[in-house]
């Protein structure tokens, strides 16, 4: 079984490099570098937002509301990307929004990935009854209308940053668990785990030292792909009125709030929408690239 996989991988590599043109190779590199630069840029924005943003994102000048971007007729150079319904600077809100949106996304990913990995490894390695119990919980989680859970949480503890993180985490962990369990199951039947067991390694040691390192690849790929998904999910929650509603904006809530002005002030929602699009695209391309490098078998993700 293992043999066939390696041979197919090899043949594929050969096929890839045989007829490759210079242009394609340049494109391949761009597919790595553009997303990396975009992501890095967004992260820098998020970290240094107080120093970068030209205006306060929460306080606006009401006399300056609905100003179009500077490059349009009627725009002011003070507000490069225009202002919103309260006269707040869109650019500054976008910069601060990077902070909120990326933190929500990364936190939710960290939480879902850790829970999913732990449960997945335990179920996959433990097998038998442990596996059955964990997988039933996963089944419940996957068949539960997750959105309902998120809405209930939002109305129960009030909308806010942590509510959104919590809600997104509740929705996401089961997917990880299911995937990691499959991997762990495959690995626990492999020769090296059997050898470790023969050598008297404890279950804990096998799980942390033998199985986990072999799962990291798939985990990283899935996590990268999820960055954008989480931001989109946050936007969807905002649309339903259960997103982050502190004065400091998230991109999702900016798009959602700006939808009332789609007909007269498109810039309020279009720029944060574009930011979301950029991050999602970068996340996807980066994830694809990492996957192709690390393990082409994972393209199902």
């Amino acid at each position, binding site marked *: 079984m293992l043999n066939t996989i390696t041979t197919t991988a090899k043949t594929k590599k050969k096929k890839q490099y045989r007829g490759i043109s210079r242009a394609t190779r340049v494109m391949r590199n761009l597919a790595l570098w553009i997303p990396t630069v975009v992501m890095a840029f967004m992260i820098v924005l998020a970290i240094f937002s107080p120093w970068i943003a030209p205006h306060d994102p*929460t*306080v*606006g000048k*009401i*006399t300056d*509301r*609905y100003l179009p971007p500077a490059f349009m007729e009627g725009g002011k150079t003070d507000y490069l990307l225009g202002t919103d*319904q*309260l006269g707040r600077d869109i650019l500054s809100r976008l910069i601060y929004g990077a902070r909120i949106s990326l933190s929500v996304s990364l936190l939710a990913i960290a939480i879902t990935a850790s829970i999913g990995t732990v449960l997945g490894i335990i179920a996959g390695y433990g097998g038998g009854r442990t596996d059955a119990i964990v997988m039933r919980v996963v089944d419940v989680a996957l068949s539960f209308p997750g959105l309902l859970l998120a809405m209930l949480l*939002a*109305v129960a503890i*009030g*909308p*806010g940053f942590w509510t959104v993180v919590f809600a997104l985490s509740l929705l996401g962990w089961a997917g990880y668990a299911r995937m990691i369990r499959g991997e762990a199951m495959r690995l626990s039947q492999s020769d090296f785990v059997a050898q470790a067991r023969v050598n008297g390694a404890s279950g804990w040691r096998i799980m942390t030292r033998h199985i986990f390192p072999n799962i990291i690849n798939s985990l990283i790929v899935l996590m990268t792909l999820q960055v954008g998904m989480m931001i989109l999910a946050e936007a969807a929650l905002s649309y339903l*009125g259960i997103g982050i*509603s*502190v*004065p400091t904006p998230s991109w999702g809530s900016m798009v959602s709030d700006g*939808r*009332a*002005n*789609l*007909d*007269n002030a498109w810039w309020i929602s279009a720029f944060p929408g574009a930011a979301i699009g950029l991050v999602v695209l970068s996340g996807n391309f980066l994830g694809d690239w990492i996957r192709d490098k690390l393990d082409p078998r994972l393209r199902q993700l």
Partner: protein
Amino acid sequence: MKKWFLVPLFVLLATVIIFTGCQQEAQTVTQTQTQTQTQTQTETTIPEPWGTLTDVAATFGYDNFDPNLVSSWSGLMFQNLMRTTAAGDFEGDVLQSWDLSADGLTWTFHLIPNNFFTNGDPVDAAAVKYSIERFADSARSAWSPYLREDYNRVAVNVVDSLTVEYVTAHAEPTLVASFSATAIVNKADIDRVGEEAYFANPSGSGPWKLVGYSTGISVKFEANTAYCRANEVPHFQFYQQYLVPELATRISMFKTGQCDILGLDDYARMKALQDEGYPVEQYGINGTDSFAFQKSWMEEAGPVHDINIRKAMSYSLNRQEICDTWYSGYAIPGGQFFFPHGVFGWTDEIVADAYDPALAEQLIAEAGYPDAFANPIITVYCQASDQDRILYYMSYWQAVGLQVELKVMETATYWSYLGFGPPPEDNIGWIWFWKSWSYACSAYHCANMYTTNGVHKVTNDETANALYAAVTTQLTYEAAREKMAEFQVYVKGLYTNIGVVEYQNYFLYNPATVGGFDGRHTGYAETIQGATHA
């Protein structure tokens, strides 16, 4: 060969289906035609209503036509016991007149004769008595508790088919407020078909009757040509409302002529559309925008326990600028909680605090702020939909040196903290905002804001309690009016609730289809009722 045989068979079948379908439709059309014909024959004086008036709504609220569930449509289909006049007074709706006995205990209602529900049943004393009792006992309305037996009702008596007596335990002239909210439903029909069937397709005596409803999509009314006030019969034959949740879509529909009426609470958008040439129509009494301090009488309330801080929060607001910017000129400074110009008890002694940041800073200094307070941060609470406006007000407070933070709460939780349902204990020193439309008489609303027993838990002041008690126990409405003025002047000085502005209500209309509004302007529904053709 066999297949070819199927083709003519199919064609035949299709023809039959189409034919029968058309026939059925044609039949119903002729039926309605004969109905309208008979109606016009009897009511020859009324010009035949024609055309359809299209409106869009952001939410339908209840998809039920029971006026007790605060349906926004009940005003279209049902008459109330009384109604308000443009001057802010009360007049009969199903009543021709009423008398209040000299001791203030007995109200005698005289019904309009020959007034009928749309199914032909008369609007009689039995229907009125039933409607009052039903409203008092089962309505989820702000006004119904005041008509209950455990409050101040002794009896509702049918004197004759056109006279009803309402007897109270003590004099309470302000009950007109509740009477004007009591919708008259058709008891005879309810007895026949049961409540559920009746309210699915109700027969009221209002200016419109329901002709079509698709759950959560649209609702259609037809002018009631037999309406008891012939001069108020709508000029449009149909009034159709579509549910369109997105604001951008509603505005675009209006601009492309897909709807004739557009209500907006985004004043900047309204101004922009008016500047583009769309006419606006003002209606109703001004709404008010105010904010209150919960339990500020307690030490633990922090800075807002000090009246100087509360005063400073009023003097630091530039009300004129708020009117000009946020409300785009559709508002005037002043007003108090449910208390704008022209309502019951209004007096010109009440003047909005001037914009005086220097005075505000002086008051803040007198209070020793921020050093005298362990926690100088003043927390403001709101629901997400009010956030933008509150942030704007906060910028004024921050400008005079107050440290203010905003907490956004989920709507239902927010309401529970305002005193709906079981009262929570930790809302000490909370500041919350109330933007609402107004009523001709809002004595009862003020009880909640300014008396110790009021559910909002804002004021705890013996004088205010006594003054309020005086308002509701006078022998005549006129005497009560003076007491109300006295009460409002006093409570303004307590600074537990601070009025910001009175905003005006407008909607836009399409001049291509609507010429104007010649009817009453007491509310949205009443104004639309008088829409004339362009």
